[in-house]
């Protein structure tokens, strides 16, 4: 359904944006100032804008049952889509779920409200590895939801040679057997780290340097898919790929002998998807109550059960089964990995480069 809604959004966004522009000029009814907050009251509504396939319905139901706050859950499929809709301003969201580089951009543009730590005591459960991140070092604006990375998945029934890094995947002998994320920034970063550059060092010079290699790699790929890259692997249409860790974890659960997850030796980057409150939120208190709620160990465990990404909640991890914790795609060593930074207008150059090379085939 994601694509249908994407289509509809494309059709109606301009109109919505126009209406939104008009609305923005009016005084925004702010429910509270951050200092003199009244006691949280039950009832009201919470407009949540999150990733599709990322928030279990039972958590929303549990929260409503406990607080009486009705949750309206709207979904997006990429940070860019989320930003587009959020910035168009037609709907006021109380809670959004951006990844680190989107957070960085939003903080830079002052689009997020600082959190009130007094209302989120469970924040203490967050592991140290998820603090001190460049996009929000003191967790002033965000509460980490899940950690994720990108790694290599191999169908060991078909691929017998050892695979250690990106350069082992993108080899001529695997031509037409590879799935890659349909994400220009990702594939560009893989080439960059393979050639010894920093993945955030997106400059015209570096892009020119990686172009020949990138062109070779793109020619080898059979499927580009960001929405459900595991599908092509499960269907047997490809045998090897570079995909989201969560998708890999699901493949591993499916058949742990067949699908192997490998972190590329050249270096992987991690992503931290978090909850944040936009500047024009109407129910900041409800949003903070929700943040505190999902930080409870038993609630956080429910998320891990459904979506096996890396859980940042130390107390929740204690409740997981040894099997869950042993899933190499769910709990890769994220500690040393870097995150993506906002690259501003360079994103357009990256997109142009990849589009160009795809078209050149």
């Amino acid at each position, binding site marked *: 359904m994601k694509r249908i809604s994407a289509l509809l959004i494309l059709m109606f966004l301009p*109109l919505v944006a126009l209406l939104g522009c008009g609305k923005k000029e009016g005084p925004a009814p702010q429910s509270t100032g951050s200092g003199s907050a009244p006691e949280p009251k039950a009832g009201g509504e919470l407009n949540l804008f999150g990733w599709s396939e990322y928030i279990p319905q039972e958590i929303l139901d549990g929260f409503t049952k406990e607080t009486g706050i009705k949750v309206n859950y709207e979904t997006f499929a990429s940070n860019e889509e989320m930003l587009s809709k959020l910035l168009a301003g037609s709907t006021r969201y109380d809670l959004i779920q951006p990844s680190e580089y989107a957070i960085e951009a939003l903080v830079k543009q002052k689009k997020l409200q600082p959190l009130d730590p007094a209302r989120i005591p469970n924040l203490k459960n967050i592991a140290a590895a998820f603090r001190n991140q460049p996009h929000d070092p003191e967790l002033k604006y965000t509460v980490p939801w899940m950690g994720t990375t990108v790694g290599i998945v191999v169908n060991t029934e078909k691929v017998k040679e050892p695979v250690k890094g990106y350069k082992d995947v993108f080899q001529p002998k695997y031509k037409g057997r590879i799935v890659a994320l349909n994400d220009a920034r990702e594939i560009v970063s893989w080439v960059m780290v393979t050639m010894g550059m920093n993945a955030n060092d997106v400059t015209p010079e570096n892009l020119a340097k990686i172009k020949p290699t990138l062109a070779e790699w793109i020619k080898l790929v059979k499927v580009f898919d960001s929405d459900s890259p595991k599908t*092509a692997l499960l269907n047997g249409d490809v045998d090897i790929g570079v995909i989201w860790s969560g998708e890999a974890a699901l493949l591993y659960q499916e058949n742990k002998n067949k699908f192997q997850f490998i972190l590329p030796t050249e270096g992987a980057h991690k992503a931290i998807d978090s909850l944040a409150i936009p500047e024009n939120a109407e129910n900041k208190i409800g949003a903070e109550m929700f943040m505190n709620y999902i930080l409870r160990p038993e609630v956080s465990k429910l998320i891990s059960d459904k979506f096996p990404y890396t859980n940042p909640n130390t107390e929740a991890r204690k409740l997981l089964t040894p099997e869950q914790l042993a899933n190499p795609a769910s709990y890769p060593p994220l500690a040393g990995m870097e995150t993506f930074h906002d690259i501003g207008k360079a994103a357009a150059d990256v997109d*142009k480069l990849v589009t160009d090379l795809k078209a050149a085939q």
Partner: protein
Amino acid sequence: MNTATGQVIELQGPRRRPGVRGWLLLAPLLLWLFAFVVAPTAIMLVYSFCERDELGQVVFELSLSSYARVFDATYLKILLSSMKYAAITTVICLVAGYPVAYFIGRAREGVRNRLLMLVMVPFWTSFLIRTYAWMSILKSEGLLNGLLLYLQIISAPLDIMYTPTAVVIGLVYSYLPFMILPIYGSVEKLDNALIEAAFDLGAGPVSAFSHVIVPLTRPGILAGVLLVFIPALGMFAITDLMGGSRVPMIGNVIQNQFGQARDWPFGAALGMTLLLLFSLFFLLGLRKEQEG
């Protein structure tokens, strides 16, 4: 000119201007057109001359840079290959759809309605579900390969998914009804006596088809070609799902500008250029039709 039987018949009915009541009846349509066609197009037109900021928001600053990019070799190449796919799809739809439309249009009324229903049944389910169904038929370990392997017609699975062939299959499947329905409309209106007259005057089935049936169903054929070619050119979901996003179509490029690349002005400029191109084609076709 003046024969014994010469009566000049009225060629055109009197032209009427809509009165107040006419405008009232038209109002919902005009409103709809304004809200969903004119206004969005106007917004896109404005956007296409704007700039984007760091975050991808549109900045209202007059600029032609987006249009300059449209004529970059990369995008022209993509436009050409999109046109190629759209053209192949249109031809296959025409060849496959015409006989179906003709058969339905010539069938008895009861049968005709039931057959029309069958053509439209796919619209009852979501387009995505149907596309996923095709994926499960065509995939490496899918129904088609399974059947062919079981019957020992092939020894290794056919590589169909994520190839241009899969894209064309998906496009043809999606747009075939849009070819059948307008042609059916023309065929149904076709006077049987005209076909009989052709036979009577010595035309065999092939001649009758090419000299009488095709020219008389031309409006339907043209409508079908437009209804298939234009949306096929802009399609992105099928290229993503069935083509593995490997061969970008112009629709994917535009979609990307509003999503991942966050460059609305460029997306708008691409869209406006396409719109201009379509309008040009359409006007040319219309003029030719009026001359012919």
